[in-house]
């Protein structure tokens, strides 16, 4: 029998690739014995990789019957195995929580014996926390694909947030890398959660994505046939959006018995399969629209196995790509962009050098410059360098007085980005030209300086020998072999 310390090490190690750690989405005062939860979420620490630690993110067990290629805990992997007892984990959570180490529990698990068996163990641990310890903190429960609807419902009544991992952006990749996980087993619980939230009129969508739309009617919930026939992969999307309409929302539920008040999320691995960014962004948009997810998380694939189906173990995780995808995700959720605007057929991948909002602006340069004092809030949000906070401030302040260029910095606009795309009281402060190439060069130069590199220009590349040559004035026009060697761009941006 291992000690709790060893179990914690093994099971936290197995859970660390789970992305979500947020404790947001539900505000609740302490109604039990211990614990409350803040609507905005609270981060308690940041680990050495810079990711926040908000919840005790842990697996219930890492003994798995599945053999998914990309997973550290796959059946054939040679790792130490352990399982918690429900009592042990509940006690650990409470003691951590009392000391304010954590905001709550994020309980995931490998599939031991069967999905139902594992889910029941998860449920008994959460129930112990809620009922015995009177725990009012945040609980995020991972739903194992293939779990029975009754158990899922019970877990939903106890937990704040539920998540089912979609794992990979397309059905083909899923079939290839995780043959034991069937799309229909993943979508069935997602659908059930959305449906329950709909019935209880509790649905909360992602950010401001459903602004000006009825969240209960936007996008039809597709009813997946038992054989999964409805799952089309036409445009890289997993879900067919044309299904039957929703059941009418039920009325008059007691507020006490709330089902997953912080909604549901999901996550997918990127870089393990060959999908384009466009497919990934389209898939996440569909997930938002269909299942009203609160978040779709991306996780850069970190090589954990030698499988020939996957990138080699020496591949660096695509962190820059993950970052750009998250930026695209923010554009979807808070800025009113659609996936088709962010990436079109011609450009299936996000530019790693420029953020997707600037890329979009450069592709649609005819819409710019925008007059800060005139354009609508929705248009303000499309200006690179203007965020949701500063856009609202602009709208509020310009009711009282016109906004000058010098005011923008105080309002919180990132002027070095926004200046190329705006006019203030009719005046353009961007530079000599509003051509996409010029703006792009300026941006990249600024990026270089930020990264403490000199802007690289082949024509004025410094060389140890050049100044001497110029000084003597004799060899200035002669091709300099050393300069040619060093004049190449050896340092990449970003």
């Amino acid at each position, binding site marked *: 029998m291992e000690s709790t310390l060893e179990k914690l090490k093994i099971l936290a190690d197995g859970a660390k690739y789970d992305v979500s750690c947020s404790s947001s989405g539900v505000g609740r005062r302490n109604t039990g014995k211990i614990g409350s939860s803040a609507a905005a979420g609270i981060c308690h*620490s940041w680990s050495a*990789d810079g990711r926040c630690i908000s919840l005790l993110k842990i697996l219930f067990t890492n003994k798995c019957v599945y053999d998914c290629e990309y997973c550290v805990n796959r059946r054939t992997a040679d790792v130490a195995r352990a399982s918690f007892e429900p009592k042990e984990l509940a006690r650990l959570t409470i003691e951590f929580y009392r000391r304010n180490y954590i905001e709550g529990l994020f309980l995931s698990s490998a599939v031991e014996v069967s999905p139902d068996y594992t889910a029941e163990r998860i449920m008994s641990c959460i129930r112990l926390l809620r009922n015995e310890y009177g725990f009012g903190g945040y609980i995020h429960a991972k739903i194992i694909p293939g779990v029975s609807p009754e158990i899922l419902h019970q877990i939903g009544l106890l937990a704040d947030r539920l998540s089912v991992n979609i794992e990979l952006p397309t059905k083909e990749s899923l079939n290839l890398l995780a043959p034991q996980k069937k799309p229909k087993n993943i979508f069935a619980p997602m659908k059930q959660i959305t449906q329950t939230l709909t019935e209880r009129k509790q649905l909360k969508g992602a950010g401001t994505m459903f602004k000006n739309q009825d969240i209960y009617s936007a996008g039809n919930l597709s009813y997946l046939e038992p054989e999964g026939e409805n799952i089309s992969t036409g445009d890289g999307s997993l879900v067919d959006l044309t299904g039957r309409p929703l059941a009418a929302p039920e009325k008059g539920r007691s507020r006490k018995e709330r089902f997953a008040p912080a909604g549901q999320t999901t996550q997918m691995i990127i870089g393990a399969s060959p999908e384009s960014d466009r497919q990934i962004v389209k898939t996440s948009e569909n997930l938002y629209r269909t299942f009203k997810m609160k978040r779709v998380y991306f996780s850069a694939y970190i090589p954990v196995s030698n499988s020939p189906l996957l990138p080699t173990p020496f591949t660096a995780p695509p962190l820059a790509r993950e970052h750009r995808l998250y930026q695209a995700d923010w554009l979807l959720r808070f800025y009113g962009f659609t996936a088709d605007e962010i990436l079109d057929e011609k450009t299936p991948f996000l530019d790693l050098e420029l953020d997707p909002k600037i890329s979009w602006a450069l592709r649609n340069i005819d819409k710019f410059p925008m007059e800060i004092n005139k354009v609508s809030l929705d248009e303000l949000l499309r200006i690179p360098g203007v965020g949701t906070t500063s856009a609202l401030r602009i709208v509020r302040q310009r009711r009282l007085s016109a906004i000058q260029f010098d005011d923008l910095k105080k309002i919180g606009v990132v002027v070095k980005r926004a200046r190329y795309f705006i006019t203030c009281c009719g005046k353009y402060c961007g530079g000599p030209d509003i051509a996409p190439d010029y703006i792009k060069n300026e941006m990249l130069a600024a990026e270089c300086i930020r990264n403490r590199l000199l802007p690289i220009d082949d024509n004025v590349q410094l060389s140890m020998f050049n100044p001497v040559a110029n000084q003597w004035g004799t060899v200035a026009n002669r091709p300099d072999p050393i300069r040619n060697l060093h004049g190449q761009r050896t340092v990449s941006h970003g």
Partner: protein
Amino acid sequence: MVDYLYDGTFEGFLTCVYYHYYGEKASGIYRKEDYQASLLSGCRSIVTEEKKASRVYEAIEKKISGEDLRRIYRVFLSSDEEKENKLLRYIRLGFQEGSGISLLHSNPIVFEVQRCEYKVNIETHRIKGLARFTALRNSSPRENGNEILYCSIEPDHDILEIIANHFADRLKNDPFIIHDKTRNKAVFAQGGSWYISGFTDKDLPLFGEGEREYRDLWKKYFDTIAIRERINPSCQKRFMPVRYWKNLTEFR
């Protein structure tokens, strides 16, 4: 024009504002102990008067807004050296502009105050996460067996009373102390209610049962959860400035 000196309380500050309007105009408001006399203007020590303070208090609430009153109080808790003067300018502008003052984001007077407020708010939020409690043995015979949770913090701003409610609600069954080491005072809370009083950590009781083990467990968890391939110390420090580390269990 005269410099007003007050005793460091919010009421004292409001009394100065009162005298600014009904007595001589203020060239500045300073805490008594921090004041350095200057040749340019004289100074006057103000005795805090509750009646005068509450008149200003109510006037701010009525003529500016309740939210601005709260904002003024939060800024007052900041450790900014010029906070009194910034606030005086803000209050003066507020009486002219009314509740619309908070919309003037680019006005330098409003900007200064909102930036101060932002700093206080951000630290409040940070400390809610970064406070670390230690379970201590409770030696008093009446509470036999119960542990006391003790936490020490060294915040930049005087945010103790803002975070007190949050923890008093969250930990209502655990008596706890949050000790502000830089200001030598602490929140004492039990059963959901709390008070603030002076405090030094001279005679702290011993660790409670299991405290060492849970510290080790937490450290182990903290080290394990980081993904080796993604190590990024500058990102970590951006979110969690190093000045807070000395009071964190995971770094001790």
